[in-house]
């Protein structure tokens, strides 16, 4: 069963919970417990803001099994405000053209329906940052 696998990742999928390295202060997402920069242990929880900007983007026309019903869909690598890059789908674009550098914010959406039993997997996507959110 894949349910427990997705459940284990709920903090990351729903809330972008990562880590910060106590030695060099690198902000780490996804969490990996050993700092990729200095090699020291990094288990201190860090809550990312969910704000960032588009580092690169594309559209997936030939989707893998499990994602075909949403195809085509926009996909991006987002540079989080705190430093890390994260791969995620873009959402709520309406007719807004995507550009490198576009400010985005994290939202929770359905990622895929898993297998024939139809387990729905939810997680982060990114949408254009709303003016209201930018002021706060």
């Amino acid at each position, binding site marked *: 069963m894949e349910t427990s696998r997705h459940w284990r990742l709920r903090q990351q999928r729903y809330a972008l919970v990562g880590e910060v390295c106590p030695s060099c202060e690198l902000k780490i997402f996804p969490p990996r417990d050993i700092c*990729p920069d200095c090699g*020291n242990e990094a288990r201190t929880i860090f809550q990312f803001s969910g704000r960032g900007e588009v580092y690169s983007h594309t559209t997936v026309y*030939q989707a*893998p099994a*499990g994602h075909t019903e949403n195809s085509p869909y926009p996909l991006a690598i987002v540079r989080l405000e705190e430093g890390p890059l994260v*791969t995620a789908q873009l959402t709520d674009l309406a007719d807004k053209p995507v550009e490198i550098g576009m400010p985005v914010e994290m939202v929770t959406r359905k990622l895929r329906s898993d297998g024939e039993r139809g387990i729905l997997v939810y997680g982060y996507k990114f949408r254009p940052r709303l003016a209201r959110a930018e002021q706060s």
Partner: protein
Amino acid sequence: MTERADSRSSRGPGLPGQPNGWSPVLVAGIGMTPVGEHWDVSLRNLALDAISAALEDAGGLRPDALYVANMLAPALSGQSHLGALLADFAGLRGIEATTVEAAGASGGVAARQAYLAVASGAVEVALVLGVEKVTDKDSGQVEAALATASDADYEAIQGVTAGAQAALLMRRYFHEHRAPQDALAGFSLVAHQNAVSNPNAMFRKAISLEQYSNAPMVSDPLNTYDAAPMADGAAALILARAATLLPPDGRPAVEIAGSAVATAAMAVHDLPDPLGLPAGAASAQAALERAASQVEQVDLFELHDRFSIFAALSLEAAGFAERGAGWLLAKQAEIALDGRIPICTYGGSKARGEPGAATGIYQLAEAVSQLQGRAGKNQVAGASIALVQCLGGSGATAATHVLRRMANGT
């Protein structure tokens, strides 16, 4: 803890050079099957065709060990345990055999395992086989199986495909280096041109810039001519110590002069520098060092053009171009058979076809054929040193080999 950090940074990119007592390793035979959609041939029969061809080419050497490069058989054929299966099926029942998996770099990594075994003297004659059977499943299943080479929890779950990752890198590359929309077209054009005279190639037809520019998008800005077609294929090599080889038949011997594998962050978003191809750079540097060769001495470069952007990144990482200038080599005068640094001399993945884990073995076999002067219309004149590199995922694994033609009679 600081101590550990220090030792990490001083360790350098690769393993130390060859220990004393190691012998030179020669490629004693090569075998390749046509790459394509082989509806009528099974995985084991594809493998057998390549093995038989390589054994015949090696003139009767019998292998003591089999290294199988394969990534997709468990997912697409419901078949693992290929070492025993294929040794048995090829009439080699009883020999040591195993499967090596490093996504698209499996072929190069398997060749390195065989090289290490033969160089150390633990194995006298090694058979390396790359085999992939992809056409039994529909494209969604193939994309999903290929996406297992990315981070399942943080990339594949987002609907990432191999093509989408290449597209993300390509757009960022164009952005950072101000490259025009058709900057990479030349890689595809030259690959197709080289495949015309390759009997094992899937697409034996030249294409025009106009065709490239009008091709449908796979994942913008990456179009169908930027992407290599996944297809069935098998290729094999026989490796042996120089002392083991049967009397020469007049062909120049080809030595594996340098062999290296390096890894980088598994997920593209975990790379501190996503366009840097660090594993490509580290393994190329280590392989050249072990061969005591300079990049300027290389006569041809079999790089892994599964997506055109990787041709640019590999050329930069190996030192053929400055950072950001790899796309400027996408021209006849630079990379064609008579160019400054010929690449993908039999059509590369783009036009020969991309048989996944077998790619690294095709590349090595093609390079051997160049160095032995057996490449016919694809011959790079006077080729004596070849650099061969294959990539797993978006470059998380890179295997690089330096092959060298030895002087006759030595």
